[in-house]
């Protein structure tokens, strides 16, 4: 029999015992719905987690620190390779070298320091960090009031909202409603701040003391680089107030006040690392505590990391962290999938039952078909098609059903989140591949379930089948 004929006959047969076949199909759709609901919850949670990470602009960033920095991220790295004391200093030549590696967009030093800012003659102590121009496109500045720095050297600052509150003398109560950033920004934008900082000033006087350095164990007969530290002030204009939550951010984003990077560099601000490297400093050039390297594509992060490691630095990237995250979600999806499939397994027993019943009921019909020339294969294919049709139909209804369950749960969760003063989130994702896979899976399960009944129907003896009324 041809496939269109087969399908037509199968659908007709399904309509004949409409109630029973509908119930079986509903059974399949409940199974598919539970599978889809479970998996889309898993996928949705995974996407939520990765979205958070991608937004922070971390997937394409490698953090480089010197091995000399004993607070390194990766302890394993420390044990391999040269001893910290003998390894390279993370200075300007090293930064340039990293920036020239293939697939690197930029490598910029993390300039971060704690200093005093004066606003309307009141001192405020806070963490200041410098941002490269590229941070402008970062999603982190999505909800910012005002504008980004007019240039990379402009004497301008962007405030984090908590610091803006501090300047205005407001204190935010934890758990209270979101602070309106626009309201905070209004009195502050365009105003001036005075930043007080410690500047390193190159000095030609070689009258510094020469000392033995215990780290190298060598008599230092060279004259070390020398510089003096001078207290300076810098006027800065407030151009923006961001609604970043510093606690959720990393690296330079954790500060409460941001400067343009080039301005930060030109100020030669004394940083804690300078003090640590003071004993070994060979020039008055700055030494960086860490460098952020932006890579063209997250896929190239690994190779860039490897090349930087070869240069003798310690690297860290979030990809290391997401690897275990992905593993976690793979296991979670597997478990959710197994639980979801259980309902489908029960439904498949329903298919077997329905078809076996149908054989008993349609015994005579099968006998007639065989008597007038239907082959075993025709009968078998007819039952397979009936099982398959129930599977596809149940699959389609089930996917729609599962999607609807997801929407309802998502809505409910967001109402709850709103009551808790949290922003709404999408926990639910039904990607197209899941829709296709669920329907295909339902189809496959129904075919497997149809195997035994179809075989049994095909083997039916027509003489026996026609004997009884």
């Amino acid at each position, binding site marked *: 029999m041809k496939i269109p004929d087969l399908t037509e006959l199968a659908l*007709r047969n399904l309509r004949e015992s409409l109630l029973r076949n509908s119930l079986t199909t509903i059974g399949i759709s409940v199974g598919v719905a539970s599978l889809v609901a479970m998996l889309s919850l898993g996928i949705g949670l995974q996407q939520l987690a990765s979205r958070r990470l991608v937004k922070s602009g971390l997937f394409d960033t490698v953090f480089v620190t010197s091995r000399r920095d004993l607070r390194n991220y990766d302890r394993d790295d420390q044990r391999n390779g040269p001893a910290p004391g003998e390894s390279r200093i993370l200075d300007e030549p090293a930064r340039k070298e990293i920036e020239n590696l293939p697939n690197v967009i930029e490598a910029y030093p993390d300039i971060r320091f704690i200093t005093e800012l004066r606003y309307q003659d009141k001192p405020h102590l806070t963490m200041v960090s410098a941002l490269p121009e590229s941070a402008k496109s970062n999603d982190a500045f999505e909800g910012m009031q005002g504008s980004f720095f007019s240039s990379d050297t402009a004497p301008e600052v962007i405030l984090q909202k908590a610091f803006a509150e501090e300047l205005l003398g407001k204190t935010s109560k934890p758990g209270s409603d979101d602070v309106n950033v626009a309201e905070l920004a209004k009195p502050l934008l365009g105003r001036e701040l005075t930043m007080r900082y410690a500047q390193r000033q190159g000095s030609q006087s070689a009258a510094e003391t020469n000392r033995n350095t215990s780290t190298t164990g060598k008599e230092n007969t060279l004259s070390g680089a020398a510089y003096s530290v001078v207290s300076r002030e810098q006027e800065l204009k407030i151009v923006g107030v961001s609604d970043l939550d510093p606690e959720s951010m990393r690296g330079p984003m954790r500060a409460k006040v941001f400067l343009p990077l080039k301005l930060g560099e030109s100020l030669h601000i004394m940083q804690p690392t300078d003090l640590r490297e003071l004993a070994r400093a060979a020039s008055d050039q700055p030494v960086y505590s860490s460098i952020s390297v932006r890579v063209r594509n997250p896929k190239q992060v690994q190779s860039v990391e490897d090349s930087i490691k070869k240069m003798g630095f310690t690297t860290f990237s979030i990809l290391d962290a997401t690897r275990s995250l992905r593993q976690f979600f793979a296991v979670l999806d597997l478990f959710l999938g197994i639980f979801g499939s259980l309902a489908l397994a029960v439904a498949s027993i329903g298919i077997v039952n329905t078809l076996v019943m149908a054989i008993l009921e349609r015994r005579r019909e099968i006998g007639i078909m065989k*008597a*007038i*020339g*239907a*082959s075993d*294969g*025709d009968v078998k294919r007819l039952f397979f098609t009936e099982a398959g049709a129930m599977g596809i139909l149940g699959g389609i209804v089930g996917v729609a059903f599962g999607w609807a369950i997801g929407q309802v749960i998502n809505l409910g969760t967001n109402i709850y989140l709103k009551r808790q003063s949290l922003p709404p989130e999408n926990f639910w994702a039904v990607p197209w591949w899941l829709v296709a896979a669920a329907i295909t899976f339902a189809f496959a399960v129904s075919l497997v379930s149809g195997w035994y009944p179809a075989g049994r129907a095909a083997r039916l003896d027509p003489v026996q089948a*026609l004997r009884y*009324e």
Partner: protein
Amino acid sequence: MTRDKNAIRTEDLRRHYRMGETMIRAVDGISLQVRAGEFVALLGSSGSGKSSVLNLIAGLDRPTSGNVTVQDRDLALLSREELAKYRLHVVGMVFQSFNLIASMTLAENVELPLRFSEVERSKRENRAREALERVGLQARMHHRPSELSGGEQQRAALARALINRPKLLLADEPTGNLDSHTGTEIMDLVREFNQQLGMTVVMVTHERALAERYAERMIFLADGKLVGDQPNPVGAEQVMQS
């Protein structure tokens, strides 16, 4: 090549069933020949094995021993698949209980064998209409069997048996469920097929009167054995007359 002039030939045909401890010899060594175009009645009481013989000729059942040859085909040598093809193309069957599929209209019932032989849809519809016209049911094409009388249902079954233009018509008590008037109508149709289309007819019946009236030859069975085989001048005469 010498072509067998017999349409059907059975040799020492046996069909035994085991029923618990006892062996039932439904067909017990029957040898007979039916010429092409002949109208034969198989007569016997209930349990004489006449339906079993018919099922063996129809390829619905396989013999325990002996063989059936239909139009030079030894049915014992055919695979299940080939046997299905044989039933589809060589044999048309009608039954006492009509055996139409209740969920289908007459037209769909009649064209069902054409679906199995994978005939195109448009051709199928035409041929089903022609077959139904032949038995005078064109007006009831789109009715379901339950909406029709017994006679009409049997006529539809005849149309279905005809649809693949088989050479052999096997009828198992075709008038058993019909009153005598309707039964006559059906038998007239069967004779028409026999004479106009040249179909070989083997009809199982327990009504001797019916056999005498229509068949050219009567074969008597009892306890699975052949107990009589005689030409029927009356039936043959009627054939001559018409």
